[in-house]
């Protein structure tokens, strides 16, 4: 049985239908990327699943409707990284990450070890003592992701877990983009289902198991990277000419703009 099952999801805000008839199923250990042009409904999908905006349709999480989960119990199993994280207060890096352990009662010693592990997974351990407000945008982003990972770090706390990431690689340099994707893949392997929105399709193809393509609120394709990333589909969805080639070393599709 899948960890997250979305059935006939529809989101309407102020008489405008943002998502229509979305079906989706996520399994522990797999990474699914949502791609599509701006305004296609990628963020809306993540917000609907996490309960930030009202929606119609069924969303089943770990066997029961997602709205039936009690807030703290859900927070131990489901973590989300939003696109915008503004924090005007000068917390240190460690303080920001350790906020993630709020829903747990695992004790200070385990919590601080988890924070250290999550920070080293995101390569931000050197920011532990720095003040958040003095960090660069990319450093803040990686620290926020470390916080989200720390929230659902251990399988023994909550079993199967779900991670939602809204454009996690935006504002990161190329090295850290790949480092982040590798960290997310390793994290998924510990029994986490991951759903993320990405703009870089080559990056999505290299690391994700499934791709879901949205256009104007509707799902136009879904499946493995090889089956979804075709020149005709991408040209139609993004309204621009593209070339898809095969990566000489990994064999994964690479999308190049014209």
């Amino acid at each position, binding site marked *: 049985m899948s960890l997250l099952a979305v059935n006939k999801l529809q989101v309407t805000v102020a008489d405008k239908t943002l998502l229509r008839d979305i079906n989706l199923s996520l399994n522990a250990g797999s990474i699914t990327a949502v791609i599509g042009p701006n305004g296609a409904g990628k963020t809306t999908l993540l917000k609907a699943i*996490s309960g930030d905006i009202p929606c119609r349709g069924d969303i089943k999480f770990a066997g029961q409707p997602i709205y039936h989960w009690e*807030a703290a119990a859900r*927070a131990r199993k489901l973590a989300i990284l939003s696109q915008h994280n503004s924090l*005007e*207060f000068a917390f240190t890096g460690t*303080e920001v990450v350790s*906020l993630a352990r709020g*829903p747990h009662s695992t004790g200070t010693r385990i919590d601080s070890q988890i924070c250290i592990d999550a920070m080293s997974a995101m390569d931000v351990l050197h920011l532990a*003592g720095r003040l958040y407000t*003095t960090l660069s945008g990319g450093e803040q982003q990686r620290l926020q992701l470390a916080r989200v990972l720390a929230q659902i770090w251990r399988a023994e706390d909550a079993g199967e877990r779900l991670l939602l990431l809204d454009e996690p690689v935006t504002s990161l340099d190329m090295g850290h983009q790949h480092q982040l994707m590798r960290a997310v893949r390793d994290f998924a392997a510990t029994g986490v289902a991951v759903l993320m929105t990405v703009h870089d399709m080559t990056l999505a193809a290299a690391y994700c198991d499934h791709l879901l393509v949205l256009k104007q609120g509707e799902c136009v394709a879904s499946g493995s990277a090889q089956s979804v990333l075709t020149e005709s589909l991408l040209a139609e969805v993004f309204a621009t000419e593209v070339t898809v080639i095969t990566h000489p070393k990994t064999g994964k599709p690479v999308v190049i703009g014209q």
Partner: protein
Amino acid sequence: MSPAARRQQRVTLASWALTVLLLASFLAALGMGAVAIAPADIIQALLGQSVPGYSGDIITRIRLPRACLAAGVGATLAVCGAYLQGLFRNPLADPSLIGVTAGASVGASLAILLGGGTLGVLGGLSLVAVGAFIGGLLCVWLVYRVATGVNGTSVATMLLMGIAVTALAASLTGLMDYFADNEMLRRMSLWRMGGLDGASGSRAALMLGVLAVLLLSMTRCARQLNTLLLGESQARHLGVNVERLKTQLIILVALGVGVSVAMAGSIAFVGLVVPHMVRLWAGPDHRALVPLSALGGASLLLLADTLARVVLSPTELPVGLVTALVGAPFFIVLLRQHRELVR
């Protein structure tokens, strides 16, 4: 040394320094005034032993209630400021932002205009104090009702409503000023400057009781408030019941500021600047921020009130005028040292 380690040291240092400062300002408040009293006599009088002359009575009947009220009001305002700054996720929020001070001004002016300035009701509380409290709560209720819809309480709407209600209240108090006679006008403007001259044992006890409620609530709110600083939806995803937390905080702040305004008039600066100063020194973690702000606010108002009593003795200055005079130089020094923390 990293900022994190330095911050830990500073929290420890600040808790000791502020405790000593509070004790010292308490002793100063008891010992200084029209009649100076030696520290040894103060301690004897507090222990209930007889002291030569009137010193014993001056301490226990006049200065002790006043010092307790000053400490209570100062601590309450500072804690409320810390809570509101957390709630608004803005280090520049002030307790008066939700309209409570402006509403209290209307209530107090109305009570004075209706001739209640000298009447005492409800266990030593004057009609003016009761009017101020009711006016303050009415305004907060109005602000809260408008800002709360089906999607919960909008903090941005609350801020705008606070401004609207404050403007409305200002014109109402202006109208009352216009129609008041000279004697009433003087009373109204003195009330607005704030003063602790109405202190009594029962008032001080009430204020300290409210402060105790605020500090006890901290054990539950502080960690949730830290999480709230990440953002409302971020806090919700971390299992915090954000709507309940917001409602709790607004009720606590309305109670704290409402009672303190009723007791001592409007005292600016303490609620805005004390938590801000503590944050610059010891960081934004509410588990340290709230108690340190309470200590700092109590010390600041005690010192300001002592100064207000002593400078033109035997006449008194309104304490509201002195708080900024005492606190602003400290704040400026801190701002100069920690400019990089303020964006």
